[in-house]
């Protein structure tokens, strides 16, 4: 997947032919804002257009029978969020976190998920064109890296996988 396609799909597209004829300084850069997140050993970037809020993690309501990557369920302004432990998704293993953690409340269209992370460091504006496909750690859902080694999270792909898993769960239940 081309990182730029995903990151810029909700933004006004610049006309490439038009840009070719303009001086370089006038070419509008495709700037995006990333929420920079620390999760275990790496820095992750999440496009802020999908971030609704960041809150300190103060526990969730456990839900019976879910895979261990789901921490539980919590509420933010009367809306329910399923909370996903991003460490488990990225590393496929349970790594005990030390110190306080945070929940990044995200939403894409009508779907929403809370991401449990170590910390949200800052919000940084970057040029989408500088995101390269490598070198990227061998982790899932990473679109590419910035020159500052911030790994851009492919949140739509993560959501799509969660949706597929949930759908399969329902279908399996029906077939059981």
């Amino acid at each position, binding site marked *: 997947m081309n990182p730029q396609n995903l990151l810029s799909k909700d933004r006004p597209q610049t006309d490439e032919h038009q840009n070719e004829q303009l001086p370089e300084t006038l070419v509008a850069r495709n700037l995006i804002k990333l929420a920079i997140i620390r999760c275990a050993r790496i820095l992750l970037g999440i496009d802020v257009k999908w971030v609704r809020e960041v809150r300190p993690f103060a526990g969730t309501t*456990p*839900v*019976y*029978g879910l895979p261990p990557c789901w921490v539980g369920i919590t*509420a933010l302004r009367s809306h*329910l969020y399923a909370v996903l432990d991003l460490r488990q998704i990225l590393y496929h293993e349970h790594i005990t976190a030390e110190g306080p953690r945070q929940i990044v409340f995200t939403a894409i269209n009508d779907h929403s998920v809370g991401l449990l992370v170590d910390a949200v460091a800052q919000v940084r504006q970057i040029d989408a064109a500088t995101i390269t496909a490598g070198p990227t750690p061998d982790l899932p859902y990473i679109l590419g890296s910035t020159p500052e080694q911030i790994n851009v999270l492919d949140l739509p792909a993560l959501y799509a996988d969660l*949706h597929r898993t*949930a759908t399969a*769960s329902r279908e399996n*239940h029906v077939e059981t």
Partner: protein
Amino acid sequence: MADDELSQKLLSLFAAEAGEAIQVIVQSCLMLEEKPDSGQRAYLLADIMRQTHNLKGSARSLGLDDIAALIHSLESVFQKVKSKDLKLENDVFDLIYRTLDGVSGLITGATPLDVSMDLLLSRLKMVAEGTRLPKKATARPLTNENTPPTGTITSGDQETIRITVGRLDAIYNLVNEIQVVRLSMEQNLAIIRTMLYNAKPHVPRENELLLARTRLNDLYRKSEASYRSLSQLLAQLQDIVRQARMLPLATAFAPLPRMARDLARQSGKEVMLRIEGGEIELDRSVLEQIKSPLQHLLYNSIDHGLEMPEQRRTAGKSESGRVTIKGSQQGSSILIDIHDDGAGIDLAHVKEHAVRYGLITDQEAAQLDEQEAIWLLFQPGFSTVSAITAVSGRGIGLDIVRKSIETMQGEIYVENDPGNGVRFSLKVPVSVATSLCLLVQTNGQIFALPARNVIHLARVLPGMIQEQNGHLLLMQPEVQPVPAINLAHILQSECQAVDRTIQRAIFLGSPDQPVALLVEELYDVREFVIKELPSHFGQMPLISGAAISGSGEVILVLNTTDLVKIAGQRGTEKDA
């Protein structure tokens, strides 16, 4: 609601829909007139045909024959245009617009027809048959002496305004969110009240703390008064919004007669469908959710329940099978019965089928009682029909019915009378805005149980829980033992190794055949807005939703139907 009132409401709904449909037709015609050969021609004509067809059907169903006749003739004209047998020229457009004006006039009664009904019909017929219209004929004002008054709908004092469902839902959701805030305030006030009460004996007299306490008391009283006012206003607002969302049950019943007719013709059976209680009103979201279950149950009654005419004759019944659908209100719930006079459910066949498909073993089948065997029908993928028919027997119908009803915190009852028929009863709430829930605790976690599903509560004393053949039974003096389940064991929560003492039993299910849910502790009954679980969780047995407490914590709402079912089936409980 009186019949007249119901008719008036349906006519008002029709008037609103017809106004919108006519607007779409006019707009499409204008576009066709402006660009007759545009690439959108086929799409516009298809849209016009759809609108006219729907409008005609609605008018006919309400007995508005004049309107239906006009639209029918108009539809014939558009059919000719669509098949390219007729070219849309100015005089044809004039006639179309004049006809639509005439229809609007008949609907609203506001503008009298300036042409006669018969003349319009004859002109439309001429156009449809390819005869040219006389020149300037439609420009001549005509009398409306032949226009019958039957198609006129008066709005009376109930002026209506159309609002999109999305906007109404947004208001509704906002009211529910305010309700959550109110519940939070209620809880906070209760905490302050308790703190004030507890602080009383410890505060010395005539010091700053006493003054602070007096001020706090005063503030509490004022806050409580504000809270009461807010509660009253919110209750009124919620009631108005709830009323705005109410629709008659007839809306869900409307497609059933046609379905019954088609299915009867398809299966070679004779069916008499009787529908009662269409005037009862319920929330739009509930109404939407019961449409599919009703259709499934009607399909099942006709396709599986009713016998063929010759079989009925042999059984001493009338050749024509009878299906009755009856809605009635029971407090804050609506009960919908779907009753047929067919053959009933062959439970032996149901068990045999379940064994054949590995749902249960022979031994388990032998131990099932009537209700447990009936419940097999609601299992995912279960079907007693060996040959899949066009409309049912796919093994998903009753499972969908169960899921839909449970999503609304509703219940399903089945009464089987072999040889004489089956009665499916759906009990659903009138509205799903808020629900009273009983809070229970097990393994340190608090869960909510919809209070309407609780029969009664009991304190569990030592020795009351006994194990027999792997089943838990709750023994009570002078009462039959009741099947019991330990909630902690069912949920298999992480603390299951901790042996906590069961103190309470909650009786669920039907009063005749209750089951006991064993928990550690009971708390109070509270009002909650129940929300659906996040979709990412997938299939969640035992949990039907979640509520947000006053302090913002999420409380899972237990699925009582699943619990009752498990209590009836579970034979693996080892201890309490």
